[in-house]
């Protein structure tokens, strides 16, 4: 595609034709705020926070839906633009709950950030507030529609990425809200697969992971990139931890694998690791085989006993009387060691893993 040269804030910029003004600016390090934009979703132009001034164009076009043209002259921070953005933020805040003190999104909230950036306190208008009940009838996601700014990202992610089309705008004017058909909850809709990708794109605190509430504030979290353990897709995870406890899991954007998206297991299933059912000390059988009665032991005792029994059986019946099942859930390193252990230490090739591919 041909290139186009334009000027943004006095800077000459060349980008491929078809690029949006927003993209051109961001690719060149020029700040434009957005609430409803996500580079992976269809641009919508709904929040109007990304408005700019373009010479020769009437009004303030939304930069996320305006494509560049040769010779275009763009102002991203003229007084008129800034005034318009402040007004948009004032209007959003007019009916937004003042929950920042305890909101789980605080510290990572776009609305909060832009309000701060533009010095908007939200005290210009005193609008009517919503009083929707909290939707928390499922174990994964909490929806607080009082905080929703109607950016529509969750709707687009559900339609374009997850392709389940569970939610959409409903009702009119002040009563507009995002909901499954017939005002059902996600759970009642029976269509939602709880992938949580909507939670991940929500710019404010309207959608949250249920288990993360009250578990830690944004700035207290340590983030670790790892790989999901629940199927062979290998989605990349960003695990957020506080005090040796998983607060939440989000998708890490590996563009070659999951591009940041997850399914219900990857996003919400990691809590198995902290289950009280975990065995946390070695166990030695006391009851009958199959009965499942054990006593706790030290590592030394359990390992000595195991080594002794394996040695005895090897001596009495030969190496081939011993067999091992390695694990398609364990790491490569562990599988490598398990087969090495059986071959080099026990002396047999009797090693396999669950054939259930």
């Amino acid at each position, binding site marked *: 595609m041909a290139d186009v040269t334009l000027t943004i804030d006095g800077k000459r910029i060349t980008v491929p034709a078809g690029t949006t003004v927003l993209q051109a600016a961001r690719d060149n390090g020029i700040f434009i705020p957005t609430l409803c934009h996500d580079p992976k979703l269809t641009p919508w132009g709904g929040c109007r926070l990304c408005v700019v001034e373009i010479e020769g164009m009437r009004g303030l076009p939304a930069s996320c839906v305006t494509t560049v043209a040769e010779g275009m002259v763009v102002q991203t921070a003229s007084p008129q633009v800034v005034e318009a953005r402040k007004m948009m933020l004032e209007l959003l805040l007019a009916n937004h709950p003042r929950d920042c003190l305890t909101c789980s999104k605080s510290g990572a909230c776009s609305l909060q950030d832009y309000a701060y950036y533009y010095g908007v306190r939200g005290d210009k208008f005193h609008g009517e507030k919503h009083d929707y009940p909290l939707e928390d009838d499922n174990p994964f996601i909490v929806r607080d529609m009082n905080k929703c700014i109607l950016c529509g990202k969750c709707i687009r992610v559900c339609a374009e990425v997850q392709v389940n089309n569970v939610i959409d705008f409903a009702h009119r004017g002040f009563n507009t809200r995002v909901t499954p058909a017939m005002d059902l909850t996600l759970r009642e809709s029976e269509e939602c697969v709880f*992938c949580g990708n909507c939670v991940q794109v929500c710019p404010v605190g309207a959608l949250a992971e249920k288990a993360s509430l009250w578990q830690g504030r944004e700035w207290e979290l340590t983030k670790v990139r790892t790989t999901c353990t629940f199927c062979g897709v*290998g989605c990349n995870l960003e695990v957020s931890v506080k005090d040796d406890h998983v607060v939440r899991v989000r998708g890490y954007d590996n563009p070659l*694998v999951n591009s940041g998206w997850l399914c219900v297991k990857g996003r919400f299933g990691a809590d198995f690791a902290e289950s009280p059912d975990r065995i946390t000390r070695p166990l030695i059988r006391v009851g009958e085989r199959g009965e499942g009665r054990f006593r706790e032991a030290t590592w030394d005792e359990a390992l000595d006993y195991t080594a002794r029994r394996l040695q005895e059986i090897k001596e009495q019946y030969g190496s081939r009387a011993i067999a091992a099942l390695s694990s398609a859930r*364990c790491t490569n390193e562990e599988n490598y060691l398990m*087969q090495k252990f059986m071959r080099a230490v026990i002396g047999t090739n009797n090693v396999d893993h669950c054939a259930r*591919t």
Partner: protein
Amino acid sequence: MAGLAIAFGSGAMTNSIAEIEHNDVLLIIGSNTTEAHPVIGQKMKQAARRGAKLIVVDPRRIELVEHAYLWLPIRPGTNVALINGLMYVIITEGLVDKKFIEERTEGFENLWAVVQNYPPERVAGITGVPAEKIYAAARLYATTERAGIFYTLGITEHTSGTSNVMNLANLAMITGHVGKEFSGVNPLRGQNNVQGACDMGALPDVFPGYQKVANPEVRERFAAAWNCQLDATPGLRIPEMIDLAAGGYIRAMYIMGEDPALTDPDITHVRKALANLDFLVMQDLFISETAKFADVILPGASFLEKDGTFTSTERRVQRVRRALSPRGECRPDWQIICDLAARLGYPMHYDSPEQIFAEMASLTPSYAGMSYARLEGNGLQWPCPTPEHPGTKFLHAGRFPRGKGLLQGIEYQPPAELTDEEYPILLTTGRMLYHYGITTRHSPSLESYRPEELAEINPAQAAELGVRTGDRVTVVSRRGRLVTKVKVTDRVPPGIMFMTYHYKESPVNILTNAAFDPIAKTAEYKVTAVRLEPAS
């Protein structure tokens, strides 16, 4: 994956996940992708949304059927016949890729000798798929440049599993749909690191990198590297281990993170075998059904509590990084193995998984170019033979590992187990979205959402029994019986029911058949004849 190894010389997904978004046709066979591989399922639905055509072959009206251009509702266990029917149309209508067949394959005559007996009209009788749909699917697949095949357990978990896979390879080869980007034969591996476990040589006949135990040169190299003597005889596969344990020949077992007493077929037999052992050591996170038979249980660490790597279904090796400290006194499995080895007089000392990886890579040609440093970023896909090699996005460009691709005619064999008057319903088993193996049963969120089995039965069956969604029924097979709640749904056709294998309270493998595929030794989880009775 034995089927692909026979046809091509190596068995793994030939393409990459990221290629799906450029496919124009996806032939999805025996894969309930949106539940078993949800993020790949997402990509398939995205492809359909932008205009790609999905051909879905599945007995059940799975979610992907809603996005499909063609749905072929097949009778379980009849895949080989269907694929033969597709090839019949492609060959008789001249839709084959002659050049590819000549240059890259051998055995076409042998293939045709079998396929010629499978005109769609006959195949329709075997498979239950209308002949017009077979014609349409064959033409669409053969004439589309970017056409990929995707399959999972639905194909491999049959007594004819290996044949099924070889036949898919036949289909791809005669149309030239392999060895390039956006076209290929793609097994979607179920467990997160099943690809890695195979690559690492957790198999009785091969060392890491599929190097044969029976090959003396290979053995010498490993013996030198490990400083030990090595057994030249390939070992036992799981079903043989179980049989020999029941027979008293296998005396001890070491089981790491697997639960054969729940997930293997015919668990009554498995449990007998486990009870017969002199010694069983388990390494696991929870007291599984299998662990109840253990003499010692060693507490391992979850994936969040250790470092390492997993190899995903697309051959991508990616880092696992420690986010939590091991709970209580738990230890990463690699450390436990080292501790045991030392006590048995073979010191295994590694400071970190990175050292283990380096040793493995030095002995495994397809991983030889990888290191933890290189895996930072987006991981690497094998083969990656040298430190400069960028990894391999799609396999078999220009040449198959075995040289020419092997075309082999495959006759349809009915499943080992058939329905009759006493057991009139076919039970098929699989995964569901909210659970994975048994670990997720311990996830408070997932478990509270799906705490019990909801066996899918057709409204016709439900009416016969007089049950509604949420009611209980007894399911009886030739091997056992269990009680389960049902969900009445037309996702399953009359005469077929579906259950998952996640629930120890309704352990479906009490019912299933241990008859296994003669080559891959994968059991026939997919076809069990059962009858339904009201729960007493």
